[in-house]
Structure formats: C-alpha cells, structure tokens
C-alpha cells in the first residue's frame, strides 16, 4: 500500500509539468469559460426564448457536455493515457522504475490510478465550473432563470456516468500506449475507434454498447432522451457502463502482464 502511495505521488510529481496534467485543468476552464462568456454577451438572444430554469440549465450544461463528451473527452483520454506511459518510454526510465525497491504491481497500478484520477479531476472541474458559472451568470444577468432549478443532482449523475463510460476507452488506450512507445499507433487506433464508436452509437446499432469507444456517446444520448421526462431520473449503470467497467478491469489486468512480459525483453 505504501508502495502504491509513493509511486502515485511520484507520478504526480513527474507529470505536473506535462501537458496531460495541465489539460485536465485547462480544458474545463477553457470550455466552460467560453460558454459562460457566450451566455453573458449573448444574454439577450438566450432570454428571447424564455426558457424555464430546468431547460436553461439543460441548454447551458448541454453546450459543454456536447462539445466535450462526444469529441474532446475521448481524445483527451487517449492523449492522457499516451502521455502517462510515454513519460517512461521517452526517457527510457522503465528500467529505473522497476529497479527501485517497490512492488511492481504498485508501480503499474499507480500509473493507472493516476490516469483515472486525472480524468476524474477533469470531469469534476467540468461539473463544478458548469454549476458555479451558471449561478455567476445569474448574478450578472438577473433575468436568467438559473435560480429556478437546482441542477446539482442531474449534473453529478451526468458526469459520473460520463466518467464511468470513459474508463473503458482509457484502459484500452492505456494498454496500447504501454505496448507501443510511438505516438501514431495508439492514437491512430484510438482515432478510428472513436469515430467508429460515434458512428455505431448514432446509427443505433444493437451491439454498439459492446464497443468501449461508443460508451460516452451512448451515455450522453440515453441521458438526453430521458431528460425530457424527469431530468434526474436516469439510471447510471446502463449496459454500456457495465461494459466499460468490465473492459477497464480486464485491460488493467492484461496491461500488468504485458508490462511484466515487456520487461523481460
């Protein structure tokens, strides 16, 4: 446990100057910031529609969820999974890492955990910034109806679902980046996977839920449908989420054995 903890701290220390780490913070700040600025300067246009509080929140949070959930998040996940492993590939430091008196599984698990935590931080920030920026907008533009509805529960559930749905992609990409030290292979496969995932999810292919790359799109789509009825009444653990979690668990184990094997070469 101590091994895992110090390896994890070291991961943070090592990568706190990398783009993958900062992107987890910059992405939500940038996207939520841009949307909030848009809602501030175009307040008159938005106000024309006379949205009730719930719909206004839906429009507002949907703007960042739509941009981010479908495209940016999967790509960020890919890039981050790449970056966490590439730091060792690039510097040829796998050997030093494994020559330390630390449990091998801990070193590996710390890396994986670090990637998961970065993803979590990124989505948490998205949820937090969407929530707070909505109320700030309300203060700046008192005619807005943000105060009429509390989106806390629905936002939390949305983002929890998105987080769980991304774990599958994260794990698959994590293993790819573990196997290949170059940028193109994991990114190329990931790119094709994401495009394929979006297509299969959108054409409504019956087995799309089995493809981890479709999970974020599916997670978002289902929530959108059920939102019209009662916003917070949608299940988090749907088929694609279970698949995503199962893939994540399987890939975590496979990755460990790949790492052990790769070291022998």
């Amino acid at each position, binding site marked *: 446990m101590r091994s895992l903890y*110090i390896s994890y701290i070291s991961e943070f220390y*090592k990568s706190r100057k990398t783009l993958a780490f900062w992107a987890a913070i910059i992405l939500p700040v940038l996207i939520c910031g841009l949307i909030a600025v848009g809602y501030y300067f175009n307040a008159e246009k938005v106000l024309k529609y006379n949205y009730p509080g719930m719909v206004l929140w839906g429009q507002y949070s949907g703007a960042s969820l739509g941009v981010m959930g479908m495209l940016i998040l999967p790509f960020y996940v890919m890039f981050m999974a790449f970056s966490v492993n590439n730091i060792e590939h690039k*510097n040829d*430091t796998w050997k030093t890492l494994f020559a330390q008196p630390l449990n091998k599984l801990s070193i590996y698990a710390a890396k994986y955990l670090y990637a998961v935590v970065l993803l979590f931080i990124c989505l948490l920030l998205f949820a937090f910034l969407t929530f707070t920026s909505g109320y700030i907008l309300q203060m700046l533009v008192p005619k807005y109806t943000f105060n009429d509805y509390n989106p806390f529960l629905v936002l939390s559930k949305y983002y929890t679902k998105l987080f769980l749905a991304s774990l599958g992609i994260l794990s698959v990409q994590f293993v790819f980046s573990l196997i290949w030290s170059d940028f193109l292979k994991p990114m190329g496969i990931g790119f094709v996977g994401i495009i394929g995932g979006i297509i299969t999810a959108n054409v409504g292919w019956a087995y799309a839920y089995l493809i981890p790359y479709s999970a974020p799109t599916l997670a978002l789509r289902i929530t959108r449908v059920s939102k019209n009825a009662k916003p917070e009444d949608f299940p988090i653990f749907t088929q694609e989420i279970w698949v995503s979690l199962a893939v994540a668990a399987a890939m975590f184990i496979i990755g460990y054995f790949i790492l052990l094997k790769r070291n022998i070469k």
Partner: protein
Amino acid sequence: MSNYAIETVGLNYNFGAQAVVKNLSLQVPKGSIYGFLGPNGAGKTTTIKILLNLLQSPSDQVFIFGKEINSNRIASLKRMGSLVEQPAIYGHLTGKENLLNRCILLGIRKSKCAEMLSLVGLTDAANKKAGKYSLGMKQRLGIALALISDPELLLLDEPTNGLDPNGIIEIRNLMIDLTAKHGKTILVSSHLLAEIERTATHVGIINKGELLFQGTIGALQDLSKPAVKIETDHQEKAISILKNEGIETTPIDELTFSIAYIDKAAMGKINTLLVNNGVSVYSISKERKDLENLFLDITSKN
C-alpha cells in the same frame, strides 16, 4: 553469512533461442571494486539487468548478499543502486527534480539532493532541465541517482561513458572513496580494461556470455608473464643453440623470437652464449604483455 555481495551460480539466460549468458558464476566480494569487463555485446548489460531483477533469472542462480534475488527482490533492491546503460532521467524535469522524484520513491529526506548534486558537481546546473544536459552531465546525474539511497552495493554500467578525462578521474576517485571510506561494494562494467585497471580490486572478464577470467587484479597481472625478445642475424642457429641448453623458444617473426624471462643475469648469459657461438644479437629486451593485450588475448581466444 555470505562473503559475496553478488554471487551467481551457473547462471544461464536466453533471449529466445540465443544464449546471452552461459553458466556464469560471478563472485563479487564485499568491499571490492569489481571490474566487469568484456567487449560490446558480451552480455554485461544483460547480466546487470539480471542482477537488478529487471530480467527474471532462474531460481537459485543469483544471490545478492547471500539472498536469492527472485524471492527477495525488494529487500535486495533496497541495498542496491544502479546505473544501467545510458542514464535514465526525465528530460522535462530539472536535475534537482529528478533527484527529488527519486527521494519520493525511496522515502529519503529531500536534503539529500543538494548533497548528491554537489558530490557529482552539478550544483550549478541543478535547476536546468536534465534534457538539456550534456552526455557527461547526464551521466553524473545518473550516478547521483544511483548513490542517493546510500546503497551498500552499486552496479554501474559503463559509468564513464561520455565523460571527459577529468570526469573519468573524478568518477574513479569517487569509486575508490566509496569503497575505502564507506565500505561499499561496486560492480563496474566496461569494455576498456585500461579504464578500470587502476581502480578495480577484482576483475571478471566475459565474452559471448561466458566468464573467461575471474580473480584479483594481481592474479590477472600474473597471467601476463614477461618474456625476453631476441633479434639475431641467424634465427635457426640461435634457436638450436638455445635448444641444446634446454631453453624453449617461441618464434615471433623471421628475425625475432622470444624466451621466458627469468632474471637479468640469465638474459646476459644468453646473450654471451649466442655471441660466443657466432650469432650476432641485434637486440635483446624484456617485454611484458600489458593488461590490455592480455584482455584482448583472453577475449579473442573464445
């Protein structure tokens, strides 16, 4: 308790069908500087990786301070510091941050970093990105990383690679200091004998995965017996004269041959003998094969 810091017993290691290490029995005494010599591709780095458990050895073939490595991996690694191949450092972190990161991993107090930086002469470059270091500076940082946990046993794979003559001397002195004053054991690999001849107390010579020689540096020197090289105008006659006296000769070329060296008086007698028998001696001199040639001899034989 074993007297060896490192002991391998008939160690074999294959990459697929290719045997990289064959029946290797290293014995590195505690407190020694063990020069691990061999040409490029001899299996030195592979052996060092096995000693660090980076490559899995068969059980009961590798012992670190008397303990089997596979079943005592973490305990063994705790007592070791290493520098394998080119130093592995994070280019986007500064030299100091690289050391701090290692402190985190090893649970060492962070003040140790400054100490290490000054030890390897990198204090001025502490806040420079390690990726921008010269090869020699990277090598020094690698050595600092290996030393930071104050390990009892150091495995250094060609540590003077890329260092200038000054740097080489510093590393040499550092190694002597570490063993003499701090009781460390050092295994240092090299493909140049001359480089470690002056520091090593023990030597192991490996080629094509086989250990060809192992012993103290003195024992290695004893292997190279001095010879007397004689150049005459009449080789055959000279050889037959000496043969009649029961002296064995080894021809070198058409004009010169060598005999075993005994002492200066014997050299004089041989000279007189040849001259008295009508052979002109152009030159007669004592020759000692230097260790470098001996090393080449040993490694080229197999």
